[in-house]
């Protein structure tokens, strides 16, 4: 029976690649497809004409965003992705990863939500990282004239600050500082012509919340940065007191239901009272997912921490809410 395949293959990591038109996504994709890295990646793209590669590992998608009939007004998923990701699992041989490119103007939420909502996608794949490629030269202009540019930054686990050859070091620092006001937690890599080590982009396990939340950006723990109502901002709260799971569930469910449209991403690592394992929580708009992960280390302080990236966030109210979850 040597031909029988392994029944349950480990989930295949999926990298979501976002970024404005012209930022360098296609260059990066072409490198992933043509470089001799010894790995097998499937690529789901939307604008095939730009890619210089023709093989059956490239799948042409029609970015079809569907509403789910599950009572969440902003619960949207990518119907085409559900079909394609399930379909790729039916091919023989192991894939090292799948890269999903979104169009320049795309809202990343439906892509991310697809990984929480669909049973087949959940079984076969895991969201590894949302990678946003931005153009150091033009990012500030894009942020000024479009809402999507900031959303793509807000969703990112990794930001590739590309076209560094076109800006001065001072300009680059200014762009980076601006990025940090939107998303202080994402890892940031500077590059020219999308030249970044591929292992930094793919198979990073960046959605691994514990790691992301471990390094708290210094400038964020202080006071509010000034923002306009429609600007994306980030807040984080920590507590040393153990969390009561029931109180937390009640609070977060209500918060996501009432405020989910403004909350782009919510992530948390929680120390539940009487529980040795850490609880990892995350949400995209109203769609939430949580699971126990590795135990707290011996002697490690059991801080619970929650991070919000979104619009129109009320810091005192969110703080009171989170602190009210203490056991």
């Amino acid at each position, binding site marked *: *029976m040597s*031909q029988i395949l392994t029944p349950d293959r480990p989930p295949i990591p999926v990298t979501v690649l976002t970024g404005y038109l012209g930022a360098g996504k296609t260059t990066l994709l072409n490198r992933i497809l043509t470089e001799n890295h010894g790995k097998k990646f499937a690529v789901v793209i939307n604008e095939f004409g730009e890619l210089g590669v023709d093989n059956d590992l490239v*799948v042409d998608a029609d970015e*079809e965003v569907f509403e*789910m*009939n599950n009572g969440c007004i902003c619960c949207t998923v990518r*119907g085409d992705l559900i*079909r394609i990701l399930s379909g790729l699992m039916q*091919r023989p041989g192991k894939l090292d990863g799948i890269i999903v490119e979104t169009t320049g103007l795309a809202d990343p939420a439906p892509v991310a939500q697809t990984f929480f909502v669909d049973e087949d996608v959940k079984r076969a794949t895991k969201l590894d990282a949302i990678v946003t490629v931005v153009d150091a030269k033009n990012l500030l202009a894009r942020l000024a004239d479009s809402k999507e540019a900031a959303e793509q930054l807000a969703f990112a686990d990794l930001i590739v600050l590309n076209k560094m050859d076109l800006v001065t070091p001072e300009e680059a620092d200014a762009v980076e500082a601006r990025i940090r006001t939107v998303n202080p937690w994402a890892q940031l890599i500077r590059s020219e012509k999308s030249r970044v080590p591929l292992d930094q982009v793919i198979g990073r396990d960046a959605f691994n919340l514990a790691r992301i939340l471990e390094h708290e950006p210094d400038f964020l723990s202080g006071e509010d940065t000034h923002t306009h109502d429609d600007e994306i901002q980030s807040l984080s709260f920590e507590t040393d007191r153990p969390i009561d799971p029931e109180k937390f569930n009640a609070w977060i469910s209500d918060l996501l239901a009432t405020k989910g449209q403004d909350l782009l991403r919510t992530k948390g690592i929680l120390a539940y009272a009487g529980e040795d394992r850490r609880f990892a929580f995350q949400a995209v708009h109203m769609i939430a997912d949580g699971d126990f992960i590795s135990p707290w280390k011996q002697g490690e302080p059991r801080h619970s921490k929650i991070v919000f990236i979104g619009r129109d966030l009320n810091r005192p109210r969110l703080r009171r809410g989170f602190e009210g979850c203490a056991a």
Partner: protein
Amino acid sequence: MGTTLNDADALLQTRGTSQSLGAWVMAVAFCRTGKTLAFALGDGSLRIAEVATPEAEWRNVPVHQGTTRAVVADCTDGYLTGGDDGRLVHIAPEGEASELAGFGAMKWVENLAAHPAGVRLAAVGRAVHVLDGKGDRLKSLMHPSTVTGVALDAKGKRIVASHYNGASLWYVAAKEDKPRLLEWKGSHIGIAIHPEGTHVVTAMQEAALHGWRLEDGQHMRMSGYPGKTRSMGFTQSGRWLATAGSEAIVLWPFFGGGPMGKAPTELAGGDDVLVSRVACHPKHDVVAAGFSDGLVLMAEVSSGKIVPVAAPGRGAISALAWNPAGSHLAFGTEQGFCGVVNLSRQ
């Protein structure tokens, strides 16, 4: 292999033939003459077996780049296949391949239908391409979003296609192609039409079915499934719609005013394992079911009698079909295990 001759596997062991083909079985079909059957595999091949001598070597026909997404019996003989390479191919029973259409690389051809009257359908993206028996493309019917399922009515005259926010109903021979839109909010992922053409039913992303009675457009909502319904079909009599997606074969009654306001009949339930495929017998109210643990069985609707065909343990059933005479049942699994069982009186 170490499978013991246990009760559940008795029919496969004593009256069947099986092979492990090492790739996901996407679909299985018998051709209309009933002389051969073909398994479509995840590795892009089609494997053809003789019904009379299934123990003889199966023809291995490499057809598609990537995966052979679908196989159905073609209009008169042989098969129609679609693949990841955007091609629609006719395969003769002897294995000779002839391309009927190419819809562009990287476009998956996942949903097919064919009718003896000389109608072939291939859904690619938002289009349903209609071809005649000679292979000429008659028309391409456009939909508002990707087509996720197609079916022809029993006469081969009407086409139904499922998509986002509902289904579309077309006539093959219409001079002017204007669909009747059957609307229901949400993502519809598969479709079936009643043998008498009276009802259309779709499966939905939200693990429920939706239906329309065509005479008055009345809606039917059939919910309560723990999983998505990836497989469904009407019994030959038209009395029952057999569906996968639950721990039992769920049968909705299409008589006596049903299914509106009627509870479904559930057969072969009991374990926590979901039905992954159903296939209705071509002559009797008998339903074959495959489960996600690999069990295959038959159930007689009127008596509820269950007969096991193949034991669990070789992968989730991903393909299941009867031959036109109803004497042979074929199945395949996600792990590449394929079987065909002769159930005729011996």
